[in-house]
């Protein structure tokens, strides 16, 4: 048990902290709201990351990556948060699609796809979920029909993040009737007439999610990943990469806590920082944010040891959602009515966050579903 950095970890942290500090200065102070503007910021960031050798941190070195360990990735994520790095808009490309192609792709596929992901040139989205296939992914109905030279895909996908800026998609489609052994994994080019992206506007006013309609969209057979009807195990591997990415993900907790503290401090000696009630609440939030990070570190330590996830890895989301809500609500309270002004720089940012965290609480299973799962699967209470 050593919660501090080892000498090598400390050196890595120092190195990337310096690099990130320089690189964020090339970007706007706060990440833009508009997805296309965020993409522009991300591309600047990624260009610098390639130059410095940090792109594809977790990828093996032979594919242009750095072969970083779990703890190095965790340090990277912490420092991204600290530095205020731009939204990693190609997290699906770098975090899910790339590692899956490295594991299951042909030599030609690796040569075709990996470089552009690494360089941030091609953005990826994930076409897995369907209206009738969410938690029960194997119930998917989108079909792939064999045609000359490839496949034609027809069906509907939903909750697809960033489809409107994606160049490619990892796609699951039905090629046989067997639930699990009738699914094939494709790498779909998004820019074609058979693909229609319909943004879903969220209560934040943004439309990061989309519905994607596929009407005889064409995939060359060269872009089929793995064997026909053999997509299910590959999909499970992608979901593993997804979970690792989320576990390591930039959750912004510490940065938001720091911003809240700055906000309170900005009021000066007569400001909210002098109010004992506010002081108690800020301290409570700072404490819970630290506890969240520490609990994540326990889960990462297990992951680094190759051990199966323990109970600490399943409590993270239930703990984080109310923490983020309380954090944003306190910031809004400190700001007063201007917190509700979308045209106020601080207000607009915190208000959007306050709405966004309420949606995040629902994503990947509502808190009530999460509690039921914990009670049944971890504590063993009867169904």
């Amino acid at each position: 048990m050593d919660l501090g950095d080892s000498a090598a970890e400390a050196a890595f942290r120092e190195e990337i902290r310096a690099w990130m500090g320089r690189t964020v200065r090339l970007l706007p102070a706060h990440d833009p709201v508009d997805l296309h503007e965020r993409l522009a910021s991300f591309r600047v960031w990624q260009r610098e990351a390639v130059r410095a050798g940090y792109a594809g941190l977790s990828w093996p070195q032979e594919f242009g990556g750095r072969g970083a360990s779990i703890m190095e990735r965790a340090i990277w994520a912490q420092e991204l948060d600290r530095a205020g790095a731009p939204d990693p808009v190609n997290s699906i490309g770098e975090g899910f699609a790339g590692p899956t192609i490295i594991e299951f792709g042909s030599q030609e596929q690796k040569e075709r796809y990996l470089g552009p992901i690494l360089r941030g040139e091609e953005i990826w989205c994930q076409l897995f979920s369907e209206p009738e296939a969410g938690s029960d992914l194997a119930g998917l109905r989108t079909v792939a029909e064999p045609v000359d030279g490839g496949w034609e895909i027809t069906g509907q996908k939903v909750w697809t993040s960033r489809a409107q800026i994606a160049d490619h998609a990892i796609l699951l489609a039905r090629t046989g009737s067997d639930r699990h052994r009738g699914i094939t994994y494709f790498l779909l080019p998004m820019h074609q007439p058979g693909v229609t992206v319909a943004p879903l506007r969220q209560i934040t006013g943004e439309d990061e999610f989309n519905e994607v309609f596929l009407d005889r969209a064409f995939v060359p057979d060269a872009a089929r990943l793995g064997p026909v009807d053999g997509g299910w195990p590959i999909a499970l591997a992608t979901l593993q990469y997804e979970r690792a990415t989320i576990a390591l993900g930039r959750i912004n907790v510490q940065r938001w806590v720091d911003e809240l503290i700055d906000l309170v401090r900005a009021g000066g000696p007569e400001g909210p920082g002098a109010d004992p009630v506010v002081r108690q609440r800020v301290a409570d939030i700072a404490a819970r944010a630290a506890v969240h990070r520490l609990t994540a570190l326990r889960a990462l330590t297990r992951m680094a040891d190759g051990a199966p996830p323990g109970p600490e890895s399943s409590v993270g989301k239930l703990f984080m959602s109310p923490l983020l809500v309380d954090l944003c609500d306190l910031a809004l309270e400190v700001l007063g009515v201007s917190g509700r002004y979308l045209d106020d720089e601080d207000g607009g940012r915190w208000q959007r966050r306050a709405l966004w965290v309420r949606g995040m609480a629902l994503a990947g299973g509502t808190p009530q579903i999460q509690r039921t799962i914990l009670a049944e699967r971890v504590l063993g209470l009867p169904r």
Partner: protein
Amino acid sequence: MRFAFTDEQEMLREAVAGALARDLPLARVREVLACGDQTPVRALHRAGGWTGIGVDEDLGGQGGGVVEQAILAQELGRAAAPGSLPIAGCLAAALLAGGDTPEADDVRSLLCDGTAAVVVAIAAGRDAGTGLEVRDGRLSGEVPAVLGAPEADVLLAAVDGAVYEVAVADPGCDVVAHAFVDPGRTIADVRFDVAPARRLGAASADDLDRLTDLGAVLIAAEALGAAGRLLDLTVAYAQQREQFGAPIGSFQAVKHIAADMLVDVETAHSAVYHAAWAHERADPQQAAAAVSIAKSFATTATARVADAALAVHGAVGFTWEHDLHLFLKRAHSATSLYGSAGAHRERLARSLNLVAETSAVTA
């Protein structure tokens, strides 16, 4: 960065848990509480070598540090083990760590082999007392709310950077015990009235805050153990108790309470062991923040677990006969010892410099 017990720490945990399960089941705990004789519990501590945990082996201890002491405290909490000496002894060992005189070695060896109950006269409550003073080798002053004092053979006092020893049997030493809500804990107001005091050597720290912080970490660890046991009791009860023709654990209302208990126990674990590690290894400012996080967050969470356990058990959990209250009282009373949640949040807030201009002056 690694946040997991080492193999040695896991072995220690298993050894302590195993010995307590075998030799101190709840029926035995109740016998000890009823007759008030702690002798068998102290024998168990001696036999396991637990009295020397946190003291270097070349000084006659068992080695280990605050994390190992927290492991012991957690398992004692899980067992609702009676007696406050284990935690009080850890504080005594920490205070003696600065002294390398023969007198300090002498007391340390009595402490480590468990032949004497050594307790530091330090307040576990908000009131620090009148302040102690030594004149002509005699100690005077009052310290209220000293955890473990009713069990002590020897009291240690830190005065002007030195450690003094007073025999409790001396007429100049008055120990007035309180009836504490948790029958397994002992606490007393201590008064020294020109009591003969032997100087043992230099105190380990220039202020007693670090000692109070160690108490806070270990009390939080003990509460964590009690909360973990309450979660186990609650899950077992919810599986077995039937109402409306089904085990109550099949109802979502009960499942959701149990899931929230798990969240509280797991996150409290993170806070407690972070603080234990930081108290020993991090710089003083980081260590103090870690302790305040643990004492404010973890003891609040574990007290919440106790209430949730009572809610699931219903009226049977409110009876004296049921074991639940032994753990509930340990978890609840932990919030009052070595700094309340509010006091620790205020200390954390001060370290965050929420009022940038003035904090440098007032801190």
